[in-house]
């Protein structure tokens, strides 16, 4: 190995530096594992329903806006919707202006408190956007292809029904 220094003192310094980095790496890894729950930005609906979220305390809820669940009040800015992690659902009430990206099926993070009846009263709603970037035509093509696929898988079942 020509990369390793031959000089004993340099070797010693290299070993010391490697030791320093692994030591700090291990310490930080242990600390972050211990703090995992605190570093997470939000709780999922499943975590909230299993009682992991703090009670009577402000916390963040994250998940997807359930399809067909958004109801707006005509007279004021009240919005009702459900947040899902595709398994469990939590109902959310929010009064305020929603971000542009807010729509059904979109990921959101809401800050607020859980009411006794299990409804989440949000003070702030932020939209999460995904890591996909494509032109609108490409997005439409994917949507059409998916719609076609679901139709082709559902038609045989549909024909059996009558």
């Amino acid at each position, binding site marked *: 190995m020509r990369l390793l220094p031959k000089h004993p003192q340099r070797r010693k310094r290299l070993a010391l530096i490697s030791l320093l980095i692994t030591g700090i790496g291990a310490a930080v890894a242990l600390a972050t594992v211990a703090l995992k729950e605190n570093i997470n*930005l939000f709780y999922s609906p499943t975590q909230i329903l299993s009682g992991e979220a703090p009670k009577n305390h402000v916390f963040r809820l994250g998940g997807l806006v359930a399809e067909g669940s958004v109801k707006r009040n005509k007279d004021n800015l009240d919005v009702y919707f459900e947040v899902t992690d595709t398994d469990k659902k939590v109902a959310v009430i929010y009064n305020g202006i929603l971000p*542009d*990206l807010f729509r059904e099926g979109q990921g959101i993070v809401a800050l607020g408190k859980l009411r006794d009846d299990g409804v989440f009263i949000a003070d702030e709603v932020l939209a999460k956007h995904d890591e996909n970037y494509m032109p609108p035509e490409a997005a439409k093509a994917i949507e059409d292809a998916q719609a076609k696929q679901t139709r082709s898988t559902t038609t045989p079942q549909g024909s059996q029904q009558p």
Partner: protein
Amino acid sequence: MWSFLHKLASPKHFYHFAGRLIPWLGWSTLLLMLAGLYTGLVVAPTDYQQGESYRIIYIHVPAAWMSMFVYMVMAGAGAIGLIWKIKMADIVASSAAPLGAAFTFLALVTGSLWGKPMWGTWWIWDARLTSELILLFLYLGFIALQSAIEDKRTAANACAVLALVGVVNIPIIHYSVEWWNTLHQGPTVTRFDKPAMDTSMLIPLMIMFFAFKLYFGLTVLMRARGEILERERNSTWVKQMVTESS
């Protein structure tokens, strides 16, 4: 190869070598930057979800990548300086620090400007944003520590240790969006799968990435040359060069 590297470790040789490289780097940076900005801001299509606002990605993402890359360069140079006691490595590390701080600052500011319209907030204390902010503080700490210690050699050693300790933050920044749930989305390009970005949008991003890389190469060499002249101002070759040019 090894003799070439050995020669580069001499400040005088480095000074002249960098001087020959700088014009090439300057012109290619300018060309790539113009090409990247034109293709990114004009040619690339709009995004299906974010419309035109996603175009800030062409500054934000290269700046964020560079903020981590420059740190690795700085820490690597610091380690070389510590182990082999090469003065040139210390000079490169200290020249890179303010540039890295600038890239980090740019990534944070553009991210904030992007966050307001898309997420609905300028700032949130999620793992990605917080770890990137810590990176900025590491750079600032490096710069402050260096200017606080008068003796150049002691300063370089102390700064190298600080830079090496901070390396632990780099994987945290990169994997923060996977290890914890964050408001910031997951990686688009730097993942094992194929990039989750349309090719027509990815090409300008790659051009901008190389433009930023070359810009860093250019500016770090320019800063290193200045630093060499300052440190070697009493050596014969610098004095000779000054008298010849005047």
